[in-house]
């Protein structure tokens, strides 16, 4: 049976250290997977936006559906302030969405398994493709970006004075809570994303261990696709809500 130690090992920092000009830079698995996600997204966006025409055909339809979905989402929550925020939220939902569901592209056997089969040590370095958001640091980085967006949006659209004034509205008694909100919001955003993805990942690992065939394919639809997509949507949605509150 898979014991706690093995499970902890799966959750902990794994990766490589590189030395550049005397600097010691650790590269974790989540960073490598994020590079893969970025590469996929960049290549897809270049392919999908080539040869744009007035009357859309084929792949341009897909691109327009995605852009329209993002535009409608931001318009719904931010009203007429939506324009400068739409690109950020589009990027966020695409990146988080692909990051969360990327474990369905996992190679089985994993890099280590291939190395054991073939005896080539090169394959050992291929990381297991796990969602990078199961790393606490990645989720925290996204949450901090979100809260900075809220901060800057509030200052930009209300002016410094209006922004400061928003802390003591409607009554000054709420001031400590309003300040505290800037710390509790990123924390709850981080924990929600990280906790959900880590839980789904852990359950899928246990299922892969217990029943390696047939059963994981059905459970994967729920835990990887549905849960991952939903969490990405909720993260974007809550950020939109916070920004909407800040600019109003």
């Amino acid at each position: 049976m898979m014991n706690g130690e093995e499970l902890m090992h799966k959750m902990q920092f794994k990766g490589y250290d590189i030395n550049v000009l005397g600097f010691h830079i650790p590269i974790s698995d989540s960073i490598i997977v994020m590079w893969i996600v970025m590469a996929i997204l960049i290549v897809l966006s270049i392919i999908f936006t080539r040869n744009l025409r007035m009357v859309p055909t084929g792949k341009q339809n897909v691109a327009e559906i995605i852009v329209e979905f993002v535009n409608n989402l931001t318009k719904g929550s931010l009203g007429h302030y939506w324009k400068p925020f739409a690109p950020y939220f589009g990027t966020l939902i695409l990146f988080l969405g692909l990051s969360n569901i990327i474990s369905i592209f996992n190679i089985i056997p994993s890099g280590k398994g291939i190395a054991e089969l073939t005896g080539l040590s090169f394959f050992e370095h291929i990381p297991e493709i796990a969602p990078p958001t199961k790393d606490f640091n990645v989720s925290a980085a996204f949450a901090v970006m979100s809260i900075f967006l809220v901060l800057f949006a509030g200052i930009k659209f209300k002016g410094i004075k209006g922004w400061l004034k928003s802390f003591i509205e409607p009554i000054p008694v709420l001031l400590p809570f309003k300040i505290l909100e800037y710390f509790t919001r990123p924390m709850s955003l981080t924990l929600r994303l990280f906790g959900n993805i880590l839980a789904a990942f852990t359950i899928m690992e246990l299922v892969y261990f217990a029943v390696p065939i047939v059963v994981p394919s059905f459970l994967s639809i729920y835990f990887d696709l549905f849960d991952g997509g939903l969490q990405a949507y909720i993260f974007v949605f809550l950020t939109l809500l916070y920004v909407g509150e800040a600019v109003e």
Partner: protein
Amino acid sequence: MEGSGAIAIAASLAVLTGLGAGIGIGYATSKAAEAVSRQPEAAGKIMTLTLTGLALAEATAIYGLLIAILLFTKV
């Protein structure tokens, strides 16, 4: 390790926070369905409110999971 059994039990107890989250999410969703069937034109607004409520209700379960994980590292 000494006392690891008690820590394991404590970790499993921490996950019981899922009970509250489950009840809360179920209740909120049923009410949302009711509201939409009563006023289908307000579906967008109801969806927004429900998702916010669900996310907040779910947070308790996640905190329970987090505490369970923190305890788990001590086993």
